[in-house]
């Protein structure tokens, strides 16, 4: 109930009956509490990672006075690397970048995937056929090859890596949304809405798509970990931002030759990747449990 306490029951109900202009159709109804409970950890971790670089003691590119290959110490908690940059500071920036990159790919992938999946699932027929074959086509493209091609054509950059990943990532969302929307479209409530004279766009937005939120959110949250690993993998083989930038995969690979002598240089970023992926998976599992319970 809204916070209006005066006025007749009728006027209070009026508030709830009439569509609120700015309401996201996808969040209409009783999904919100479960969604919030599933997703607040993502927001929390994102917020922490965004402010984390405030703890950095040095700049990303700054060569410290102490020189290269310093052992971890109070001043340089994770030591310094081959050209004397503070590993701790670089890892903090790298974690932020990895996390936000993963979220960006997911946001893009789920938005495009939801659009295509909803259209295919709700309209069916040849639209479904064409959209899903296109989806299959993109699914067949190898991310690595696209990234190499893009980088060969335009030079290495983080954006190109993200584009390459997004291109192969959205089809999964399209498939999930399509399957869900198709199943919902065959349910009596979709028939009832059609008989009530609801327009096609509203049918999709209000009667079909909200049903796909839970599975999509579960997939999204489980995907964060996958994407962090995929991004780190691409940057490890040199398909990421060009060298000076603090990218965890690239840092790890550049430091690899010092593994035996100055282990902290490659290991610190690798551990950071592991921590991020683990955290993401824990959050994803939690979201999965929360939203699954609700739908049964």
């Amino acid at each position: 109930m809204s916070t209006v306490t005066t006025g007749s029951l009728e006027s209070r109900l009026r508030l709830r009956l009439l569509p609120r202009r700015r309401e996201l159709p996808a969040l209409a109804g009783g999904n919100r509490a479960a969604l919030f409970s599933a997703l607040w950890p993502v927001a929390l971790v994102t917020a922490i990672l965004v402010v984390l670089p405030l703890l950095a003691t040095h700049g990303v590119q700054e060569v410290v006075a102490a020189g290269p290959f310093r052992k971890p110490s109070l001043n340089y908690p994770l030591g310094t690397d081959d050209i004397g940059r503070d590993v701790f500071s670089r890892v903090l920036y790298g974690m932020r970048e990895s996390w936000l990159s993963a979220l960006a790919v997911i946001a893009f992938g789920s938005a495009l995937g939801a659009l295509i999946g909803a259209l295919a699932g709700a309209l069916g027929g040849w639209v479904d056929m064409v959209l899903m074959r296109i989806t299959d086509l993109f699914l067949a493209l190898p991310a690595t090859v696209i990234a190499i091609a893009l980088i060969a054509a335009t030079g290495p950059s983080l954006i190109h890596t993200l584009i390459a990943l997004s291109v192969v990532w959205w089809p999964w969302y399209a498939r999930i949304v399509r399957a869900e929307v198709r199943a919902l479209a065959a349910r009596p409530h979709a028939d009832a809405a059609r008989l009530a004279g609801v327009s096609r766009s509203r049918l999709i937005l209000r009667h079909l798509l909200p049903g796909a939120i839970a599975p999509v959110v579960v997939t999204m949250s489980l995907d964060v970990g996958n994407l962090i690993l995929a991004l780190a993998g691409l940057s490890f083989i040199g398909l990421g931002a060009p060298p000076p930038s603090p990218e965890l995969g690239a840092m790890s690979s550049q430091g690899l030759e010092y593994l035996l002598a100055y282990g902290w240089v490659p290991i610190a970023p690798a551990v950071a990747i592991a921590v991020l992926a683990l955290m993401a998976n824990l959050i994803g599992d939690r979201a999965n449990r929360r939203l699954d319970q609700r739908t049964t």
Partner: protein
Amino acid sequence: MSTLALDVDDLHLTFPARGGDVHALRGASLKIEAGEIVGLVGESGSGKSVLGLAALGLLPKGTKPRATGKVLLGGEDMLTADESSSRARRGSYITAVFQDPMGSLNPSMRIGAQLAEAAGRSVAPAKDQLATMLAATGIADPEVKLRCYPHELSGGLRQRVMIAMALARDPRLVVADEPTTALDVTVQAKVLDLLAGAARERGTALLLVTHDLGVAARICDRIAVAYAGRIVETGTKSQILIAPRHPYTTGLLASRPRLDGAVAGGELPTLEGQPPDPRRPASGCAFKVRCPVADSACDQPPPVQIIGGRRCECHRPGSLAGWPAASSAAHAETGRLVAELARHQGDRVSVPDPALVLANIRREYPRPKRHPFAAAPEPLTAVNGVSLTIRQGGSLAIVGESGSGKTTLLRMAVGLLEPTEGTVTVGPGAGPQLIFQDAGASLTPWLPIGRQIAERLEALGVARGERAGRVLATLRAVGLPAEAAGALPRQLSGGMRQRAAIARAIAVPPALLACDEPVSALDVSLASQVLNLLCELRRKLGIALLFVTHDLAVARAVADEVAVMSNGEIVEHGPTAEVFADPAHGYTRELLAAVPEVAAAA
């Protein structure tokens, strides 16, 4: 040692739950003699199924139920028995037949292997022994069926297999929980007779748990009536059916549509109200709020009265001669509100056009080719050349079994499906509406009821400012509180959901209201309320009804014309009274004979 097959004494069962413990049973007592067939009848939530599960020692462990009382199976208490001994009892002493045979059979095992497993002897029984067991349940070609997988058998055959498995070890007691609810009406009658026959032949006692008094009346020796976690009345079949002593039993009997009832009257007596919430059990008599003869004494727990083997828990047993007719205050109130709704929407233009004309419609479904170069196989014909007319404000019931094409016909009538041939013409005014069997599934789960009704008003061009008022008027007319407008479907009970679906359909009265088994998922007391409401809406708003049902008694209660459908064709069509009095087609006679009737059994 007694001869009792089952002795349940003062059984209390409580399931701890968030938001309050669920008191499923509150002192239920039930005795079953050896070889006796007892029907346990009650509405959903009355605790009848839980009682059956308790007897089987199959209470869901995860829910950590708290139980007191006794559940004696041949002297052993199933409540205190450990897992291994209660498992030993199951199979040899007590077995079960559940509603959904597909869920109870292993889909990856042949019937023969499952039956052998159920027989449970150390040496697997020979093929011909297994075949004899199947044959005893009336299965033709038992040798062939032994090699089948469950999905290769029809629902009726699967349930027969379940019965054969339940009887395989000659148990002393079989618990059958809604064994025929999922079956077609003619199959239902056969399976019930078979179950009863097999039990009697072996001297096995049978506890038949069902929501349908008619089903119990068909085969039982004694009937026990469950209400709010207690057995409120027990007696022989004829005692219960002819001279019920508990007012609840009287109400249950009265609210059942009958084959000899009024045609299209919509004047079924109704049990108003709902059973108490099992989280908040009432003090005193649980039925007092719905009881027409309740007085102040009923605030105390009712005394148990036992006369000549007849048990009744009531302060005023036998004081209610007949349930008051529906033209009570509540009924008049509904009528007034519907009339108000009609006024609100202006007088409907009365034109001579019929509400629906189906002209020789046919619907085919293509069958998949066996391989890409094969010739296209014959399509499946679901509806084959049906012509029907419903006049404005008329009411036609289509009866038939599953697979007869009645739902396909209905979907074509409302425009959800295109006929392959023929034309569908609907009357002027708002487009036809459909009430679904599963009201919960027909409402969008995440949209409040009021929004869903308002959407239809919006689609028909009702001004924004008027919508809220119209929504509330419609809700009142179908007997829902105004608060329902803000509720999500899952926050309402089954009966309320069906009313909400009806509200959406009549918010702007359509020329034609099609109903697909609208009450088959509802308890008797709710079903009669919904049927009355539909008749009332028809009378006051001039809506024509097209009613699909498998239940002839329901058809009689709402329709002035009946069309009997079989294999996609209409085999008989005529005024309800005539078709019932003098069925011309053999299939109609078969359907009529299969209806579980209380009057015939008593």
